[in-house]
């Protein structure tokens, strides 16, 4: 925190206020775990603050780093220790059902779908977050979208 100027803190806080919720939702959709999402979002923003003015595009950087942190945590947990949210309302019920469907997608397809189709991040950023080429990211999007639509159709009868 010592390296961050007041203007940097204000800029990062502004990004957090505008994008933090959507980033958190996106990572919950990807990771299926609210704790993982909270840790990844907090860490990514803290890292951005620590880097001060060095980030050319803090928003894109935060999205990418948050997803990488979440992916690393899922890998550390062995992909099996998902913690299903406790359902307390109809809205949470729908969110929980969506998480359950998204878990049926391979990780990279799921991340690509969430980043591009939900969060509107461009394909180039999706590719950077996944560590793949833009062409591969497009294929993951194409496959993920078709698979998810099929799952949604099956669920809805």
């Amino acid at each position: 925190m010592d390296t961050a100027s007041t203007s940097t803190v204000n800029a990062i806080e502004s990004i957090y206020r505008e994008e933090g919720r959507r980033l958190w939702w996106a990572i919950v959709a990807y990771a299926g775990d609210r704790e993982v999402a909270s840790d990844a979002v907090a860490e990514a923003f803290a890292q951005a603050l620590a880097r001060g003015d060095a980030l050319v595009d803090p928003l894109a950087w935060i999205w990418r780093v948050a997803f990488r942190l979440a992916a690393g945590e899922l890998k550390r947990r062995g992909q099996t220790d998902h913690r299903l949210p406790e359902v307390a309302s109809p809205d949470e019920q729908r969110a929980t059902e969506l998480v359950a469907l998204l878990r049926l997608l391979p990780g990279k397809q799921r991340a690509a779908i969430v980043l591009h189709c939900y969060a509107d991040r461009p394909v180039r950023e999706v590719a950077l977050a996944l560590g793949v080429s833009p062409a591969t990211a497009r294929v993951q999007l194409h496959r993920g979208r078709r698979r998810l639509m099929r799952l949604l159709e099956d669920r809805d009868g």
Partner: protein
Amino acid sequence: MNDLKRRLRDIEGFAPPDLWEEITSTRTRPAPAEPGPARKPLVVAIALLIGLAGVVLVVRAFGGADETPQPAATVENGPIAFMSEVSSDLYVEGAQTEIFAMNPDGTERVRLTHDPEAFDEDPAWSPDGTQIAFVKVGDLTAPGIYAMNADGSGSRQIVEDPTGPRSPSWSPDGTRIVFESGLGEEETGSGDRDIYAVEIATGELTRLTTDPARDEYPADGCSQGRSANQQEPTDDGPADRQHQEYPERRDLGCPPCPGPAPPLRP
């Protein structure tokens, strides 16, 4: 808002916490491994030096050591081939990327590929300007390295490759195409990428690198690999949301480069 996006917004049924206090009090761990902005100029400089050395070596390997590459400004400009998304998003059925070409001044934009089931990307001009190699990826069309005539006719598969190949580049004599691929992944289990060459006449495939590191962006001594014309793709496309990515100029110091292709006819 389309149906998939609307459905994905169900995730907003969870109430997000306010993390700002935690963020400002967090003692950060080391940043995730990736080149930081302060180190990027050095990384880019090293990559450029390695790339330049590779270009020189390959030119010599192809017997072009006596040819002095012409500065771009002294070579008559030919058409620019590029890929573009033909829809604003990928969750609309039929959305895909296609290959386009245009004159150097941006006029006469012509669509060269029309495959609704695939993503056509990474165009690369042949040295004589009569052919364009490109990558085709997707689920319903055989993926791989393809080539077509400069007007988009005669599209044909040169080699099948389901691993998401990229960066095709022609040899100066136009007889083979080098490209990056994960074809060796199944053999080694390493998951890395290597450089391959395919003989256009026979389809014979040769693996040129086998090291466990990722080998990418081959340059054939002609097209200068990723040239200065390659712009960073942005989201700020024109009104039709067609993004221009990875343009390939065929006329940047090409030894030997027989001459410019004829102007495009829309």
